[in-house]
């Protein structure tokens, strides 16, 4: 008989062992909580405030007010009239007049047809409930006391609305065709731009990965160039090319560039690098053995293309499509510049908030915009998680074989795309350097005298650089440290999954929505963080949060490649985890750290959408200046500023490249055997 049974028992009762936390555990959990708190304050709370704002409705409740009118001698006979009754008699206000926003004000003299501000008649007004409020001039009256006023003062009485929660704003939104048409418009241009961009980018990536075409390096560089400029820059170039006084206006055969055509062309320009990168990665990982198998089965190239190439890249294609869709539907700068009368959701938010001061409606449009953005984001995440599973360590990289005819064809195609990208940039640079299009084509630098234009002048440019540097430094530190904590701390599963969720959220939130929610949250005087409103700090925070997700994923990918046991070894050697972090983790992950910082820098330079609601006269930005100068009709200076952003980003990239080569050579010596 064996004495030890092989499948004994169940866990004995009694409490489980409770781990004693080491100082490092406590430090790491504490730090993680701090970053979670940061994300809650800079992301969750603002979004929540915005959501609740979209459900806030304001209405004039006339039944809450009572009035008395005296005779010419100023004697009141005691007749009390409610606002409701007066409106029924006079029918001054229709029901829709009574629906308003948080800033709504309603004058009341209309209730009294005989009213004249010179008459000696006296008026009394009071609230019947505690919720009633009215203004006399700028003095707010609450409570149910009668207030007696002469005619001249009564003129200045304005009723204030009552807030309630409900779907009123949404009902209002969907019953206003001018507003909800934008949904259709946004979806339409996003779908068209997506189809065009993904198709163009696929063949471009195919040429670069699967042909023996020449100048691949140059084309790769050109394809990435649009990332370095704000999305509205192609809009400016298109105005110069096809606008009312455009150089190539005739090519449109009478159609106007202001509207969907302009938005789609511009969107193709600024989303091209994103689509190209994703598809290129998908094509690069495909397995040569499949092509050998196809060739040995005597498949035609056409059939191989549809049975091997396309299925292999399908996740990349789907992912690229959703990324492009998301970029276009949430973009604000381009449709603002070239959209004309064609309304889209992102611009509607801006118009409602900045143009009409209707914050509730801005919030409603934001909620409407978030839905497709989140859907596209969620599908993209699902697809990407499948893409990983496709990689196998045994794959043999595909080597293209020369095919002179096809290679020439691909070269021609890529040249066309390259011409499109370089062309638009060149037009901008050209426009920036000539005196007065189209009347005086002589060269001058007068368009660079930004201080003479709207938009904050050269100060904006330097503000942008400051913002970009601060975002890069602070953002990289927060993101990388946060990613380290969430990847390498032990136990504490709930905390870590909450962190992961918050880290993924920013990508699904359009910049306009984030910016607007910041107004609601930080511009509230009762918020203790109100002080940062209008400062550089809120711009940095907003930009870091806006671009958190991609940076976080980059950091996580790098950290996952580190040996899982480094922390265990360090603990067994009784060394603090932070020493390991500083001596090993950061140096080993330096390439990723540098990638994150340049990503944040470039995006901080070009972003418009989130910060357009948040800058103050002291913190104007270059990208916003482009927008504002364009708005003011100073298109040439706008182009000049746009190109300044381009050159700055290009320079930053070159410095980043040189610096990281240098640093890597020194710190990554261990990589070479």
């Amino acid at each position: 008989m064996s004495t030890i049974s092989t499948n004994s028992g169940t866990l004995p009762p009694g409490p489980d062992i409770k781990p004693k936390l080491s100082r490092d555990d406590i430090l790491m959990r504490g730090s993680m909580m701090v970053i979670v708190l940061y994300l809650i304050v800079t992301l969750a709370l603002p979004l929540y405030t915005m959501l609740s704002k979209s459900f806030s409705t304001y209405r004039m409740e006339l039944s809450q007010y009572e009035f008395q009118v005296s005779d010419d001698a100023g004697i009141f006979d005691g007749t009390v009239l409610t606002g409701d009754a007066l409106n029924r008699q006079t029918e001054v206000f229709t029901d829709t007049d009574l629906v308003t926003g948080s800033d709504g004000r309603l004058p009341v003299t209309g209730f009294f047809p005989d009213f004249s501000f010179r008459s000696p008649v006296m008026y009394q007004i009071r609230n019947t409930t505690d919720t009633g409020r009215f203004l006399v001039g700028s003095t707010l009256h609450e409570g149910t006391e009668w207030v007696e006023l002469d005619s001249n003062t009564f003129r200045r009485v304005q009723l204030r609305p009552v807030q309630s929660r409900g779907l009123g704003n949404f009902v209002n939104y969907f019953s206003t065709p001018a507003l909800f048409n934008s949904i259709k418009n946004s979806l339409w241009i996003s779908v068209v731009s997506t189809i065009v961009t993904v198709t163009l980018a696929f063949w471009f990536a195919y040429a670069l990965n699967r042909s023996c075409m020449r100048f691949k390096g140059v084309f790769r560089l050109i394809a990435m160039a649009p990332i370095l400029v704000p999305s509205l820059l192609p809009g400016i170039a298109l105005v110069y090319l096809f606008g009312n006084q455009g150089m190539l206006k005739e090519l449109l055969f009478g159609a106007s560039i202001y509207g969907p055509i302009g938005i789609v062309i511009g969107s193709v320009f600024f989303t091209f690098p994103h689509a190209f990168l994703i598809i290129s990665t998908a094509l690069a990982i495909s397995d040569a053995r499949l092509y050998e198998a196809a060739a040995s089965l005597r498949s035609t190239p056409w059939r191989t293309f549809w049975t091997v190439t396309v299925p292999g890249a399908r996740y990349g294609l789907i992912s690229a499509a959703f990324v492009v869709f998301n970029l276009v539907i949430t973009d604000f700068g381009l449709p603002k510049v070239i959209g004309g009368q064609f309304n889209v959701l992102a611009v509607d938010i801006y118009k409602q908030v900045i143009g009409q001061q209707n914050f509730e409606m801005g919030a409603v449009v934001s909620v409407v915009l978030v839905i497709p953005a989140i859907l596209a984001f969620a599908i993209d995440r699902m697809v990407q998680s499948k893409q990983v599973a496709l990689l196998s360590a045994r794959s043999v990289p595909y080597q293209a074989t020369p095919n002179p005819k096809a290679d020439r064809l691909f070269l021609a195609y890529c040249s066309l795309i390259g011409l499109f990208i370089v062309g638009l940039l060149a037009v901008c640079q050209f426009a920036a350097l000539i005196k007065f299009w189209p009347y005086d084509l002589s060269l001058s630098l007068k368009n660079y005298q930004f201080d003479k234009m709207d938009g904050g002048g050269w100060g904006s440019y330097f503000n942008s650089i400051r913002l970009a540097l601060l975002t890069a430094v602070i953002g990289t530190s927060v993101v990388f440290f946060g990613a380290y904590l969430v990847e390498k701390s032990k136990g504490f599963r709930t905390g870590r999954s909450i962190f992961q969720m918050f880290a993924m959220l920013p990508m699904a939130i359009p910049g306009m929505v984030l910016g607007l929610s910041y107004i609601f949250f930080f511009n509230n005087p009762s918020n203790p963080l109100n002080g940062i409103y209008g400062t550089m700090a809120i711009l940095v925070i907003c930009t870091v949060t806006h671009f958190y997700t991609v940076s976080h994923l980059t950091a996580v990918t790098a950290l996952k490649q580190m040996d899982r046991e480094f922390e265990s070894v360090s603990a067994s050697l009784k060394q603090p985890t932070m020493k390991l972090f500083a001596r090993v983790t950061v140096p080993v992950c330096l390439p990723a750290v540098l990638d994150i910082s340049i990503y944040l820098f470039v995006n901080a330079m070009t972003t418009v959408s989130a910060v357009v609601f948040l800058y103050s006269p002291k913190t104007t930005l270059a990208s916003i200046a482009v927008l504002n100068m364009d708005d003011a009709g100073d298109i040439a200076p706008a182009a000049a500023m746009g190109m300044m952003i381009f050159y700055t980003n290009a320079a930053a990239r070159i410095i980043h490249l040189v610096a990281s080569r240098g640093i890597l050579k020194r710190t990554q010596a261990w990589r070479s055997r």
Partner: protein
Amino acid sequence: MLQKTPPGELYLSIQNLWKAFGSFLALKDISLEINEGEFVCFLGPSGCGKTTLLRAIAGLDLQTKGTVMQDGKDVSNLPPSERDFGIVFQSYALFPNLTIEKNIAFGLENSGRSKSEIAVRVNELLHLVGLPDQGKKYPAQLSGGQQQRIALARAIATKPGLLLLDEPLSALDAKVRVHLRHEIKELQRKLGVTTVMVTHDQEEALAMADRIVVMNHGVIEQVGSPTEIYRHPGNLFVADFIGEMNQLQATAGDPQTLELGGSVLKCARHSHQKGSRVIAAVRPDDVIPHGEGARSPDAPDTITTPENAFEVLINEMEFLGSFWRCRLSNKRFGSSELIADFSVNAVRRLELEEGRTMMIELPADRLMAFDLPETGA
């Protein structure tokens, strides 16, 4: 029999240890004592809980219930940084951006040692693991075996009371592995450090350990010296997992006999009830080949236990270098075959070939009776 008495006093004591992952029990009521200076191997198939047990000892993944006492101190709930051990992983986990010297020095810093003291100690350790001139190199510039030695040096740099080795040799080539296991054993003997090694390689465990802890499904199947485990496996799992074992359907007889296919054979002492179904087990290298005249008293290779000797048919022979593996059949084995390993010498001397019959003997003390394996476990 060579029974090594474990040196030293009780150092590590594990009592009633349980580990649950959700509803899955990875360790079930494990109790084990390890003496100072002992080299103990946790051996078992993957998923048996051996690594889980090691990580509980280290405090890397805390047990759900139970206590761990180290050097008289209860360390059950302490984090790794407050325990006293050095650890070596299968992946080496050398810091890739630090030189070999700095890797070894990593644990020596912040401990009140001066720079020159650290340098001396690092140098000493490099000599100890036989890589004196490699200090300035980076890990990637060393071979796998060299990297593992550096990981070992780093783990023992601070002179921990306990050395934990988590499959340290699994990532290495067979030749390097054999060489390095000898070196690790030597080093352990020299330093006298209490060592626990996790491995799934029985050969490694047999070669290195003072004591082997055989685990399966979260429980300890048997604890014993390598020879005990090999010669006297406590149950069929151990018998089958360590070395190779023929398994034949049989019926228990008296305490020293069993019935195999109708014949009664003498076997090692067992405690099975007479008439109960058992598995008769014998290792292929324990089967003794005999020449034709072996039954005569003056034959050079006399049969010791006549009941256990019988004729078999050689179905198949396979040359495996140092020996021949033969598949033998006999009515006693039913439909299964008996595998026997014969030396090249014996095969030549007895002129064995496929299709011939021959005489074999199953030595009584090497023929064991075990419980039937539990089904569905």
